[in-house]
């Protein structure tokens, strides 16, 4: 009984480590593979469109709503202390440091990550990847690498857009609706937000999240069992694993950046 459990633990560990190893190898192949600018660049642009531009709408809408909610919630608390002038920094700092990068990464995992897993899983199921290999074209370079880099480029851009829209959303509710002074909204924000400490750290966070989400999404797709159940399972796993990984990495990064 106990030995059985132990054995299962061992088997799971080996499986996990092997999976991580495969993911790392794949990532290495995709990232450090010799890039071919002439053929690679159009592919990158196409993927930037699929991964980045098509995610823009959901990012803008969510950013606006989250900023508005922050403005409303922050106001009701701050007004009790007569400190509604601090609404600007509250909205800006929560978005810049946490919500911008994290929520963008979660939405990105749900929208682009799952789509990538399904797409690559389907390519595998319909033998497109195999046939590319047989045509002596490396699928890591041709399929994985452009998607990976498009994700890594898109995510910080989307996070920045999300944050900016969120701050405007907070302005919309706090200033235009609830009557916080516009001048103090912006000036208190400027007094409390630091370009390096807050803005750049937020962007660094979102670059790290991009690596994590893309690595998970592409690996799950590439490793998917090429059947319809296998792809469905891989897609779900992408969203779950990527979201958890983002939250875990967020804690580590927050501790490193703001904890000390």
């Amino acid at each position: 009984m106990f030995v059985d459990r132990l054995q299962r633990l061992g088997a799971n560990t080996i499986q996990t480590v092997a999976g991580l190893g495969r993911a790392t190898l794949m990532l290495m192949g995709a990232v450090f593979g010799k890039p071919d600018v002439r053929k690679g660049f159009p592919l990158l642009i196409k993927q930037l469109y699929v991964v980045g531009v098509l995610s823009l709408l959901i990012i803008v809408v969510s950013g606006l709503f989250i900023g508005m909610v922050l403005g409303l919630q922050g106001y009701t608390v701050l007004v009790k202390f007569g400190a509604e002038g601090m609404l600007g920094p509250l909205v800006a700092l929560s978005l810049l440091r946490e919500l911008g990068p994290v929520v963008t990464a979660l939405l990105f995992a749900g929208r682009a990550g799952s789509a990538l897993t399904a797409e690559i899983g389907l390519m595998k199921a319909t033998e497109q990847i195999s046939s590319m290999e047989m045509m002596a074209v490396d699928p890591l370079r041709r399929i994985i690498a452009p998607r990976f880099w498009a994700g890594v480029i898109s995510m910080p851009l989307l996070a920045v857009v999300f944050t900016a829209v969120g701050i405007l959303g907070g302005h919309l509710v706090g200033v235009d609706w609830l009557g916080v002074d516009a001048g103090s909204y912006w000036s208190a924000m400027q007094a409390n937000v630091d370009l390096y400490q807050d803005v750049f750290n937020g962007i660094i966070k979102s670059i790290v999240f991009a690596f994590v989400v893309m690595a998970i999404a592409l690996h799950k797709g590439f490793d998917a069992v090429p059947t319809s159940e296998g792809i469905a399972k891989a897609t779900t796993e992408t969203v779950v694993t990527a979201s958890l990984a983002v939250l875990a990495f967020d804690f580590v990064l927050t501790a490193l950046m703001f904890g000390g």
Partner: protein
Amino acid sequence: MERILSDLMVDIQNLTFSRGERLIYDGMSMQVKRGQVTAIMGPSGIGKTTLLKLIGGQLKPERGDILYQGRSIPKMSRAELYQTRKSMSMLFQSGALFSEMTVFDNVAFPIREHTKLPETLIRTMVLMKLEAVGLRGARDLMPSELSGGMARRAALARAIALDPELIMYDEPFAGQDPISMGIVVKLIRELNNALGLTSIVVSHDVPEVMSIADYVYVVAEKHVIGEGTPEQLRQHASPLVQQFLKGEADGAVPFHFKAAPYADELMELL
């Protein structure tokens, strides 16, 4: 067997391969001669596709060797393998056209990847290949807009885009209506003759294979159980070969999956 080395395109020697716990090939050997259509037949699920992937170097055998034009595929480095694959080509069962590109771009794909030819020349080449399979008019369609038979013909055009020396067909007749089947049979034979290709056809469609193959291997139970020209095979002594060729339900390959005696199992319930 006294064959001249250069006469052999693919030489499989004592191939042993297993997938997980399941042994698929146990010391199997076969030869594919240059310029011929060699067919590999056998019941479903004996790993015929696996064999093509072994020849293509996508899988590695446990024991034995696979020689392609005298050079060992499993022992090649990755770069050598990729170089070698440029001279072979494979037609997958589903066609495996890239779903994001038009038919034209699909056929142009290997040319664009491996050559630096100007776009006008690529256009000419692609149109020639599409003309050969009769799909010149469908060049701007997406793969999802093609019927199964058309998709396979488009994939065939892509497979011959770089004029390979060896072309491997994975179940080219499966799931085709009689007309498309006839077209594919005609194309395989014609391409083989016109382009001087060597073809390997993996299939379980007996009449079609018998009509185009120069040499046939029947594979079952991890071994080659019969080989020869279609004529020789029809005269083959093995009951297994005869059962397969005639499509009989019961015989050397039993109708029933391996099970405990029927009566015993019925009694257990009582």
